[in-house]
Structures are given as C-alpha cells and as structure tokens.
C-alpha cells in the first residue's frame, strides 16, 4: 500500500482550476519527483497535502488514513513535513532554535512544567537539544559550531535551504516534501543537494516527494517522475520515459515559447 495517496483531487481558486482530478501515490521508501512548467500547480499540490488549504474534491490518504480537513500541524504530527520554495525560516531565531522549534509536535511538556522546570521538562529539553544537534550534523560542518547561535537571517542562501531541510526532519516525518531544494544554488551546491537527498532516504529512512526544476537533480534522484501541466498529470514513469514524452516536451517548450514572448 502506498504511504501517500491522492485520489481525484481538484482545487480551484476563483474560476481558475489549479489542480484537476489528480491521482498520485508515493510508496514507502520511494523518491518521487514532480516536474512541470511554472504555474502547473506543483506548489498548490504541496499546500493541499500539508493542509494549508483543503481540496475542493477528492481524497488524500496517509498510510490508509484520510488527512483531508485536518489542520496543518495535525498533518505534520502524522508524519508529513515540508520545505518552502520561498524559504520560510524563523529568521529572528537562531539556527539551532529553528530546528528545536519544529519538535513542538513531538514533545509533551506543558507550559507550567516548563515554567517550574520539572524533571520531566528538563529531560525533554535535553532530548530536544540532542535531536537538533543531530539533525544539524547531518549537513557536515555547514550548520555546526558557531552557526548554532547565529540568527537564521545571517545564513547564506544555500545554508538556508539546508536549514529548512534540517527543520523539516526535526518534526520526525515519514514523508518529506521538498519544494525546489536546489533553487538558487550553484552547480557545486546543486550536486551536493542531489547526494544529500539520496542520503536522506538511505540514512534518514524518509520517503521523499520533491518538486524540482533542475533536470540533473531529477535524473539523479528519482525512482519515478510525475509531470504536471495545468494541474493535470501528463506523464508518469521513469525519468527517461517522462523526459522523452512528447506532451512533456510540448509543455516545456510551449511555456518556454510563452516566456520568450
């Protein structure tokens, strides 16, 4: 059974149909990429899965359980975590605090317990620190040491993307949704990100659904690729299969032509 399964999901804003009758499934341990030209509805897809808005119709199941209508934080607690294409870190908190904050749903200390520093609260706080350090260590030296206590706004662009991933994994998800993890990175960093996504599965054990524009990245990581255009699935299968699909080529060229105009 698939870990995440969408059945005939649709979403419209005003008169504009952004996602139309979409079926999609991601199996446990898979890495699936979603590609498509700008405005194809990729980010909306993530917003629907994470509960930022409800679908107009259709069903979204996580591990056999419907998550439609739940609040985003409840969905996260069930094991879905994401990053944002536009980067939404807690800029005025430190790097480490960003990762610690995301463990909210996995911890239990009540506010009065924290105020009184009960043994339970202290123990839990120690675990929060430990997990945060572990998650940051995943990125080698890049987010370690003195960086822990720096405000997130002082990070470079690439490091912000890394911190977003670290923060997402701190919610202890089963499935990670990565929204353009390599956007704005140079070729060297992009290559590193490709490796990193592989490691996220092999070492972290996460199932991954990723939106990506960089075809090298998509080729390098995907078990399966799904192409969207105008909110509809136009192709699905291996990278080679999708990349050579005439409708996909048409969608990209068409949009390229539009962009040039």
């Amino acid at each position, binding site marked *: 059974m698939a870990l995440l399964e969408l059945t005939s999901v649709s979403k419209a*804003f005003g008169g504009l149909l952004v996602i139309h009758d979409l079926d999609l499934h991601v199996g446990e341990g898979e890495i699936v990429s979603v590609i498509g030209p700008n405005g194809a509805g990729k*980010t909306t897809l993530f*917003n629907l899965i994470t509960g*930022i*808005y409800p679908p107009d119709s259709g069903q979204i199941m996580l591990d056999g359980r419907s998550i439609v209508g739940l609040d985003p934080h409840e969905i996260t607690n069930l094991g879905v975590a994401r990053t*944002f294409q536009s980067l939404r870190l807690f800029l005025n908190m430190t790097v480490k605090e960003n990762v610690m904050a995301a463990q909210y749903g996995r911890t239990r200390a009540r506010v009065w317990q924290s105020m009184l520093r009960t043994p339970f609260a202290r123990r839990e706080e120690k675990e929060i620190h430990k997990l945060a350090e572990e998650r940051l260590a995943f990125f080698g030296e890049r987010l370690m040491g003195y960086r822990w206590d720096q405000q997130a706004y002082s990070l470079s662009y690439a490091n912000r993307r890394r911190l977003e991933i670290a923060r997402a994994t701190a919610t202890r998800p089963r499935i990670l949704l990565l929204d353009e993890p390599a956007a704005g990175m140079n070729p060297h960093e992009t290559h590193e990100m490709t490796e990193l996504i592989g490691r996220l599965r092999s070492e972290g054990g996460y199932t991954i659904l990723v939106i990506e524009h960089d075809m090298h990245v998509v080729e390098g990581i995907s078990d399966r690729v799904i192409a969207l255009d105008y909110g509809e699935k136009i192709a699905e299968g291996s990278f080679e299969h999708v990349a050579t699909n005439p409708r996909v080529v048409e969608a990209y060229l068409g949009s390229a032509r539009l962009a040039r105009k």
Partner: protein
Amino acid sequence: MLAILGFAFYDWHYFFGQLVDGLTHGSLYALLALGYTMVYGILKLLNFAHGDVYMLGAYMGYVVLTGLGGSLAPEVPTPMLIILMFGAAMLGCALLGVVIERFAYRPLRKAPRIAPLISALGVSFFLQQTAVLLFRPIPKSYDTYSLHGGQLFHHVSLGNLRIQYAQILVIASAVGLMIALALLVWRTNIGKAMRATSYDLEAASMMGIDVDRVIAFTFFVGSALAGAAGVMTGLVYQNIQPYMGFGAGLKAFTAAVVGGIGSIPGAMLGGMIIGVAEQFTIGYLSSAFQDLITLSVLIVFMMFRPTGILGTPIPQKA
C-alpha cells in the same frame, strides 16, 4: 428578528422613531467605517487613529461655528454656515489624514506588521491628548438648538410619522457622500488605481501605479468623510469631547467587519446595521447594553463569518 417585528406591531410610532434614530446614528458609523475599510483594504492596517480624526473634525466644525459668531448670532446665513463647517472639517481632516499617513505610517511600510499598529495606537492617543490640550477635556456644545430658531429640530410629518430636519440632513448628506464616493471609486482613474492597489499592492506598483499617491489619496478621502461625520455629530447631538472618537471608532470598525472588511458597500451596510442595532438596544432594553451588543455582534461575526456580509475570502499565500 421576530421580537423586533413584535415590538414594531406593538407600538408602530415608537418603532419608527427608533428606526430613524438608528439610521441617523448608522449614517455616522457608515461614514467612519468607510475610512477604516478603505485603509484596511489597501494597507491591511487597522487605523486606530481614524476615530480621533473624526473627533478633531467635530472640533474643526466647532471652531468655524464659534469663529463666525456662534449658533445664537451667526454672521452668515445658516445654510452657508453649515456648508462652511462641513467644508472646513472635511478639508482639515483630509489634510490631517494625509499628514498622519505620511509621517506615522509610510516609514513603516516594510516594518513588522505590529509596528504600524503600535504607531496607530500612539497617533490615536496623541490626537486625543492634543484635543484635551487645545480644547480642554470638558465637552463643548454646538448648541444648534439656538441655530435659526431651532429649526433643525423641527419635525416633518409623513402621515403621522415624524422626522426631524436634522435627521434628514444627516441621512441625506451621508447618502450623498457615499454616492459621490462610489462614483469616485468606480468611475474615475484614481478610483481604478485604488481598487487595483487594494487587490494587490505589489502588482499595482509594478504596473506603474504610484502606490504612495494612491494611499495618500485614500487617507485624504477617508479622513474627509470622517470630518463630515464629526460635524454631523455636533449638529445632531450637540456635545463633542476629546474622547468621543475612541468609542465611535471601535463601533465603526465593527461596522466595517460586519459589512465585510475591504468592501465599500459593506461598510455602508454594516454602519446602518450597527446603528440600528444599537438604537433598538437603547430603545427596547437599556442604554447600559449598547456597547455590549455591538461587541457581541463583532464576536459573532468573527467566529462565524469573518469575511462579513459582503466580503470575499482572501486566499492565503504560501
């Protein structure tokens, strides 16, 4: 609803009197609510100072009134006097609104969301205390009962229902101003720019709309309406005092929420609803409850229909 109908049949004259009082009051709220709703529509800013602009408008009218000899012995004919009072208050408030926007809000366009709100709070309090300093905290009276032999408060009879001239004046000029505003917003270029800016500020600025000018103009228009409402308050209710803007502002904002914040027809409708609801509370229950009723209306709308009667939901950007 049924209860109100019951009251209506029980004593039709009393009911009608209350309704007209409510609409008079509602006209004032509606004029004020327009200022809130237009500013909120464009800047997403709760302009706490708006009620105090209205209060200063009432004082500007008072200054003109006393400057021209007072109600008992005005130096100009009564219609002229009233027009001058409206003109001075509307223009004065409009300029005041533009100055407030320029100096207290514009520098904070890119600041955290809470910053302009705190600044607005500061402006509100500052204006209130300025009025205390300039005009003393004790109420001043327009004393329009003395004006032209008190004719403003004579009644017109419609069959056996009676309305005061002053009430007709308020309701009619409020409706007139609203029609003028509607024409301005829907028929002129600057109105089009206002709507575009309120729809999407960033996109509007990229399309070559001078957003700063549009925002200043919005404050200009909204504050002028508040000034008119201030003079009307003085004409009908006589007494004005430095703290009158605070409560009126809260209720007008409630009216804007009820109508649908950001919606201009909504503000008019909401103002009337709040005015009538308050008057019925006073007329049929007790004046002690008028504020509570308005707060309850506000809370009910926030919980069950946060977009108001005529508002449209705004999609969240992610």
